[in-house]
């Protein structure tokens, strides 16, 4: 197992990705023009509330689409090669799981209770019938060791494993075809804090030792900081702020990011908790102008009229979609 992804350009390049679902009252614009890049061996976190479109983004990347898809377009390049136009057959053959795999939210609940854990970890190999079963099992044992599962768990059934061990098995299953990118969708949401920290440590080790790149989807910006080199904050189907973790966490420029950070109960600070009043908008009919304006304390006329383009933050490398950053509009000091 060697470091993966070594080309010069970014490993994953996403431009203007859209995924709309057909609904009774018009299209649900779950992912609405999202662009970002992930370098080889890097982790980008997608942070947002439920309904912000972060899981839809993962499904759009993996072409795991429900029947009621209305729009699925944009450009996605993996190691320089465009993968958006591939047929389902080619995509399944070459990309899904082989190059981009995913740890689904609540995946431990969907393990098959009647098969042994090792058998399930080996499944991506056995299902492709490329190797004899005993070889696939050998590889599965190797990957189970990699995620620190004791050898005897190979012959156990899922119900005999703790939550943390099941999650490790799910991670081994996502890694077994040696993808260069793994999408982690709330990979610790069902786990206790102690086990969560163990799993996050495991991701850090995989990143360091295998050069594994990841897209880490979470609603918890504090948890995102445990792994992410860069952070994209998603709101109502759009990325509203994106940049290196240092910039986004230390000098957030979008009012939504600022609120998101202020809403986190800190262990060692008595700052009163702040929260974001209101609820995220209906994605069939998002607000005109900036989608965050109905909940934004700094909103002014322009925010209700025109959607803000992407601006460079005053300091650092982050960019944000917010009129406050426009030099020409009189921005109230945040």
């Amino acid at each position, binding site marked *: 197992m060697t470091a993966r992804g070594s080309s010069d350009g970014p490993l994953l390049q996403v431009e203007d990705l859209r995924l709309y679902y057909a609904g009774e009252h018009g299209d649900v614009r779950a992912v609405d023009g999202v662009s970002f890049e992930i370098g080889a061996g890097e982790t980008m976190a997608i942070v947002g509330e439920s309904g912000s479109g972060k899981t839809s983004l993962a499904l759009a990347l993996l072409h795991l689409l429900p029947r009621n898809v209305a729009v699925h377009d944009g450009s996605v390049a993996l190691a320089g090669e465009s993968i958006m136009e591939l047929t389902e057959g080619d995509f399944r053959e070459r990309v899904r799981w082989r190059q981009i795999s995913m740890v689904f939210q609540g995946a431990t609940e969907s393990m098959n209770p009647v098969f042994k854990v090792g058998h399930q970890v080996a499944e991506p190999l056995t299902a492709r019938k490329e190797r004899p079963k005993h070889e696939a099992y050998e590889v599965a044992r190797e990957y189970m060791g990699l995620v620190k599962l004791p050898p005897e768990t190979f012959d156990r059934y899922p119900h005999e494993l703790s939550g943390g061990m099941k999650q490790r098995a799910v991670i081994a299953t996502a890694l077994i075809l040696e993808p260069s990118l793994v999408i982690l969708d709330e990979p610790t949401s069902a786990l206790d804090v102690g086990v969560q920290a163990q799993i996050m440590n495991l991701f850090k080790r995989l990143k360091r030792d295998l050069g594994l790149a990841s897209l880490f989807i979470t609603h918890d910006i504090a948890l995102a900081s445990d792994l992410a080199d860069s952070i994209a904050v998603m709101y109502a189907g759009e990325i509203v702020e994106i940049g290196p973790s240092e910039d986004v966490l230390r000098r957030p420029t979008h009012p939504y990011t600022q609120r998101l950070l202020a809403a986190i109960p*800190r262990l060692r600070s008595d700052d009163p908790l702040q929260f974001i009043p209101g609820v995220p908008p209906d994605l069939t009919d998002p607000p005109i102008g900036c989608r965050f304006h109905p909940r934004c304390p700094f909103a002014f006329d322009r925010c209700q009229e025109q959607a803000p383009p992407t601006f460079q933050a005053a300091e650092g490398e982050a960019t944000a979609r917010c009129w406050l950053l426009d030099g020409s509009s009189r921005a109230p000091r945040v």
Partner: protein
Amino acid sequence: MSTAERETPLLRLEGAEVHFRAREKLFRTTIVRALDGVDVSLNQGEALALVGESGSGKTTLGRVSLRLLEPTGGRVYFDGEDITALSDGRLKPFRKRAQGVFQDPFTSLDSYMTIRQIVEEPLIIHKIGRGNERRERVEWALDEVRMRPAGDFLDRYPHMLSGGQRQRVGIARALVLTPEYILADEPVSMIDASSRAEILTLLNELQERHRIAYLYITHDIATARHFAPRTAVMYLGRIVEEGPTKELIADPLHPYTQGLLAAVPEPDPANRLQERDVLPGEPPSPAQVPTGCRFHPRCPAFMDGLCDVADPVPVEIDGGDGGTGRTVACHLHTDAGRERQASSGE
């Protein structure tokens, strides 16, 4: 607790114990010690956080405190009255004064009932008011949890609301009886991080306005800091450390509390650069409680021949400025353990 104020606690659990039999093999049963001798005392209008991981017994303790579960040992007092073994019928006055808000706002509300019906139901059960009066009271409760204007929500169904709104309906349902005690069992753990602060702030405001006592059950010690002045940490059916929340966070005494605190992520870009110090393994099953100190197999400060043999009794710790009301059950602080440390240090 100051000695000057000797009020009767609103809620008191003494040596509360919930053991039950589970069948392991066809002819063999084991005893599961979900709750294994716990003392808790909660005054009028006070908030106590109960922090622990799954299997720590915190939810069982909560259920005992509402007498949804009858303890197999120990006693439960509410407002001085022993309610340990009261029948359902005789518990009814208590049920009016003690309510619960639960973890999952998606399953704890009946999806076939409107918001009005959900919030009104406790009034019907307790035969309080009628017609207009009930309607007013339901609207009052919704207004208290900031579902405003209440009229907009009355005829909606739970699925039409966000997670945070649903949880506020759950709080309104508890509040409509104007209880003195509310058990809040992980009320924010299934809600987005961004809405957690809103629910916690709301619960705090309600406490001030209505002098409600809370038992706040959580796995997230950071929320405890912002919610409860006092915290008890549970591990495998026992309270292992208790004290003022801020002191407990600033200077945790029990190695388990220390491990729990080290696991909490704070938004800091430096986090990604190093692994966290984490406790090894996972808590064992309450069906197989280790001998001696139940934390010893995972403890970094394990003392052979002591911790695996003797169950540490809770010790009161003097904070230096007189009683701080801190207790810890760990051999690092018992006489036997201190002697042992002194002799090994020589």
